[in-house]
């Protein structure tokens, strides 16, 4: 079973911005090869951080408003939300260890 949830333009506020927990948002699209490679890494992180943070995916093709609201013009982009605000942003395919460091900082 997947530990990540697919979120769209209409439920983004409720699931991400209003969340009491840190949320990692993976902005992706099916045409983007590095995005397809980020997917399984985010899935692993979701398992490892289960209960401490939420992990969601936004398909920018179907939900363009989220990307434009946060000025995202490159994918893959990972946005780390805490208290409803994006605290850090990672553009491009990165190693899992680097993403973990970001998450750990965020949870402090």
């Amino acid at each position, binding site marked *: 079973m997947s530990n990540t949830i697919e979120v769209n333009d209409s439920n983004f506020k409720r699931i991400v911005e209003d969340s009491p927990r840190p949320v990692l948002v993976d902005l992706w*699209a099916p*045409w*983007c*090869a*590095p*995005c*397809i*490679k980020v997917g*399984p*890494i985010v899935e692993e992180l979701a398992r490892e951080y289960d209960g401490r943070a939420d992990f969601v995916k936004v398909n920018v*093709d179907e939900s363009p408003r989220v*990307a434009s609201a946060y*000025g*995202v*013009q*490159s*994918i*893959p*982009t990972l946005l780390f939300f805490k208290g409803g605000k994006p605290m850090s*942003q990672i*553009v*491009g*395919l*990165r*190693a*899992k*260890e680097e993403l973990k460091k970001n998450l750990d900082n965020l949870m402090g």
Partner: protein
Amino acid sequence: MSDYQLLIIGGGPAGLTAGIYATRARLNTLLLEKIVPGGQIASSEWVENYPGFPDGISGFDLGELMKDQAIKHGLEIKMAEAVGIELVNGAKVVKTAEGSYTADAVIIAGGSEHARLGVPGEEELLGRGLSFCATCDGPFFRDREVAVIGGGNIAITDALFLTRFASKVYVIHRRDQLRADRIMQERAFKNNKTEFIWDTVLDAIEGPDSVNSLHLHNVKTGKKSILKISGVFMAVGTRPNTEYLSGIIKLGQGGTVPVNSQMETEIPGIFAAGDIREGSIRQVVAAAGDGAIAAMAAEKYIG
């Protein structure tokens, strides 16, 4: 005794091909990959010059097929970034954040990453109109004007890909002719959405929130200009991932690893293959060839 007979650093075409040859030679082999296997080629929309695919193949699929083939032959792959190599009594110790591995021989095939120009705005506007991946980000620039910086195969392939979305694609190149393959040049010159700005270099990228304009200057006339665009795609070459090797191997031109025709470095038992080695033509087919040579030379070394 070493953990492995052979350790391969990097899971692109060079490393995966080395893995195929090494496992078929029954060498106990581990491949370390810092992010995910497949290599840079994964971001290429379509590869037309790798033999065996008369209609071309997507870079992503080509990388996946190479990975599947290596795994099918028994290659073990671990996700870990090599951060150093040491020599201990003839064995090679490769260090990663998750621990060290010892091996009798090592093939360095860590490839290269996008070079940066180091101009103002480049860091700040990454992901906000500045991109290193046209196939990822092209669709964000539908009906807008964009620029590609560079004149090689990647720049021209990117420019042609972007014409599907953008209303206009400027190609800004520091020389008065392209380095890209002739066939790509012909396609680019024929396309009515492309416009070439020759002998021109990028001085700065202006925002503030997202890319708004490029500050340029002509290297022959010295004339400065400002070009209004919404997106800029950087294709100014690559730099080898060799920083961690500087203490152990004397690096060559542009930080590449010098090798002989057997892909041997100056240190017995350490080989280099693919984009990372000095003199590489940085093509998938050449990286694969290097990987095969390095694996066979490593097999001979291990004995």
